[in-house]
C-alpha cells in the first residue's frame, strides 16, 4: 500500500498534467483517505458535472432509469422513446435474470423503441408514441403495464408524453408511466434513479386502485435495490427466507408490478443498493411508516453481520433463524475461504464501479485476505463516500468520477494485483498486464451476493489473478525500453 505521502504525491503528479483550471476542479474529486477524519466525512466532492474533455465512464439519466430502476421489472414493457440507439445499447447488458417466458409474460431482454426519425423530431413524436403503445399492447397482451423512458430528443422537442400516457392508460386500462429521464438531465445516471423512483411513487404506489385485500404478514419484507445480476437477488432471497422472513417483493430484479404495488404493506424494506433506491425507501418510510435498513450480502463476514442486523428488527424466532442460517452456511463459507485464501492472501485490489460496490465488496475481498487499496464511484454522492470511509483503512486512494487518464496513472503507480471496474476499462488494463474483473455485470458470471455468490466470487477472483496467461506477457513497465 502507498504511504500517505506517496499517495498525495501521486495525486499531485496526476493533476500536474491538467491545465490549472481543470486541475483545481479535479483536485476536489481525489483524496487520500484519512481514517481520523471520520466525523466531517472524507471531504471529497461528488455528484458534480464531469469536466468536458476528460474521459468519464458515467452513464446518463436514461441509463439510470431504464437500465437500473424500471428495466428489470419483468412483466412490464419498457419503451425507449426516441432514436433506436439508446435502447439498443442498453438492452439486457446488465444480465438482470428473471423467470418467465420472454414475450409472453416477461419482457426484460426485449427492446421496444419508437425509433425516432427526422420527421418525428420535426413534427413531434406524440402520435407515434400513442400508436406504439397500442401496438405493443396488442402484440403482447399479457403485459401488466408500460413505462415510457424518454431519451434526449424527446425532452429537447418538448413532447407531452405525460398527456399521451394518461390518455392511453385509460384506453388500455393499465398503468402507463411516463418517465422524464432524458439523458441530459443531471450529471450522471444517478438522477435517473431519482426520477424513476419518483415515477414509481406517483404512478404506481399512489395510484388509486381497489385494495387487493392481502393482509400483511408479520414477517413480510421487500428486497430493494437488488437487480438480480447473474441471479444475485435469488441467492440473497434464499437466506432471508431461510431465516423465517417472507420476501414479498423484489425491486427490481425479477420483480413484477404486483410486487411493487404490494410493497407498502411490508414490515421492513431491505435496501441493498442505497444509491439507486434510497429515494423510494424514504418515501415509503414517511408515507407508510415502513422502516428501511441497508444491508450487505457480499462475503461471509458482511452477510453474517447483515443477517443479525436484519434479525434484530424482528422477534426471537427470526433471531434464532438468522443464527441457524449463519451456522448452516459458515462451514461452507470457511471451506471456500480456506481453499482460496492461500492463493489470494495479500493481493491488492483497486476498484472503480457504480453505486454500491465500491464499498460493499470490500468485506468480501477482506474475507479472502485481500486488501482494497483504492476505490471510487462513477456516480456516487457525498454520503456514499462517507459510508465507504468506514470500510476502508488509512491511506487508501479515493477517486470520484475518475478519468481514463487518472485511472491509468494510478494503476501504473499502485500496480494492484487486480482491478475491478467496467467493460470500458477492461481491455486497457488487461493489456497493461493487470488481472481484471468486470464488476458491473460480474464478467458474465455471478451471482456474487449471498453465500452461494461468495463461492463464485472467490473462484472468479482466483481464476483471474492466478491465470497463467499473465506470465506470458510483459507489462509495459517491465519492457526494457519502456518510456
Amino acid at each position: 500500500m502507498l504511504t500517505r505521502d506517496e499517495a498525495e504525491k501521486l495525486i499531485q503528479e496526476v493533476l500536474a498534467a491538467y491545465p490549472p483550471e481543470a486541475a483545481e476542479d479535479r483536485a476536489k474529486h481525489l483524496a487520500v483517505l484519512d481514517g481520523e477524519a471520520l466525523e466531517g466525512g472524507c471531504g471529497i466532492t461528488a455528484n458534480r458535472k464531469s469536466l468536458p474533455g476528460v474521459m468519464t465512464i458515467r452513464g446518463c439519466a436514461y441509463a439510470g432509469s431504464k437500465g437500473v430502476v424500471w428495466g428489470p421489472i419483468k412483466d412490464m414493457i419498457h419503451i425507449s422513446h426516441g432514436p433506436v440507439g439508446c435502447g439498443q445499447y442498453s438492452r439486457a447488458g446488465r444480465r438482470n435474470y428473471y423467470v418467465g417466458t420472454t414475450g409472453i409474460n416477461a419482457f426484460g431482454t426485449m427492446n421496444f423503441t419508437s425509433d425516432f426519425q427526422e420527421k418525428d423530431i420535426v413534427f413531434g413524436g406524440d402520435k407515434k408514441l400513442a400508436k406504439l403503445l397500442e401496438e405493443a399492447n396488442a402484440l403482447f397482451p399479457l403485459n401488466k403495464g408500460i413505462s415510457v423512458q424518454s431519451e434526449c430528443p424527446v425532452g429537447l422537442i418538448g413532447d407531452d408524453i405525460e398527456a399521451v400516457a394518461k390518455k392511453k392508460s385509460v384506453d388500455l386500462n393499465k398503468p402507463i408511466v411516463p418517465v422524464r429521464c432524458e439523458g441530459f438531465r443531471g450529471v450522471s445516471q444517478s438522477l435517473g434513479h431519482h426520477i424513476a423512483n419518483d415515477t414509481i411513487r406517483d404512478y404506481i404506489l399512489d395510484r388509486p386502485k381497489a385494495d387487493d385485500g392481502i393482509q400483511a404478514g408479520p414477517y413480510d419484507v421487500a428486497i430493494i435495490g437488488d437487480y438480480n445480476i447473474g441471479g444475485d437477488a435469488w441467492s440473497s432471497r434464499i437466506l432471508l427466507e431461510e431465516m423465517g422472513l417472507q420476501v414479498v417483493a423484489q425491486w427490481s430484479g425479477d420483480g413484477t408490478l404486483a410486487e411493487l404495488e404490494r410493497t407498502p404493506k411490508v414490515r421492513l424494506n431491505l435496501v441493498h443498493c442505497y444509491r439507486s433506491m434510497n429515494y423510494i425507501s424514504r418515501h415509503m418510510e414517511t408515507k407508510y411508516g415502513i422502516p428501511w435498513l441497508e444491508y450487505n450480502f457480499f462475503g461471509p463476514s458482511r452477510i453474517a453481520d447483515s443477517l443479525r442486523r436484519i434479525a434484530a428488527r424482528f422477534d426471537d424466532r427470526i433471531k434464532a433463524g438468522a443464527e441457524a442460517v449463519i451456522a448452516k452456511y459458515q462451514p461452507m463459507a470457511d471451506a471456500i475461504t480456506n481453499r482460496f485464501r492461500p492463493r489470494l492472501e495479500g493481493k491488492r485490489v483497486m476498484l472503480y464501479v457504480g453505486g454500491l460496490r465500491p464499498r460493499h465488496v470490500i468485506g468480501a475481498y477482506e474475507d479472502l485476505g485481500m486488501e482494497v487499496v483504492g476505490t471510487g464511484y462513477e456516480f456516487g454522492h457525498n454520503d456514499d463516500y462517507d459510508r465507504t470511509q468506514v470500510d476502508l483503512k488509512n491511506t487508501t486512494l479515493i477517486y470520484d468520477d475518475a478519468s481514463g487518464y487518472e485511472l491509468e496513472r494510478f494503476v501504473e503507480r499502485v500496480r494492484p494485483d487486480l482491478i475491478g471496474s467496467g467493460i470500458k476499462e477492461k481491455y486497457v488494463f488487461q493489456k497493461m498486464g493487470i488481472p481484471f474483473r468486470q464488476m458491473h455485470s460480474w464478467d458474465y458470471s455471478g451471482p456474487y451476493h449471498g453465500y452461494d455468490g461468495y463461492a463464485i466470487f472467490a473462484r472468479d477472483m482466483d481464476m483471474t489473478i492466478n491465470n497463467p496467461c499473465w506470465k506470458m506477457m510483459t507489462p509495459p513497465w517491465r519492457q526494457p525500453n519502456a518510456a
Partner: protein
Amino acid sequence: MPEIMLRHNERGELLCYVPKKDLEAVVRTVEFDQDDRWGGTLSLANGEKLYLEPLTQRPLIPVTFRVRKL
C-alpha cells in the same frame, strides 16, 4: 422552501435529508425540543441551519416538512 425528511439513524440520532440536494446530515440541535413545542432552528452537522415553524407537539418521525433556509 426546501422540503426535508426527518428520520432516526441506527444510533438514534435525528437525520435530516434534503431530497433536492441529496444531502443527508445529522441534526445537531433543535431550538425548541419540548413535548408541547418543537421546531425552530435546526442546525445540521454540515453547518447549515434550517428554520421550521415551531409545532405544538413533537412530530411522529419519520416525517416530511417544508422549511426555510437560514
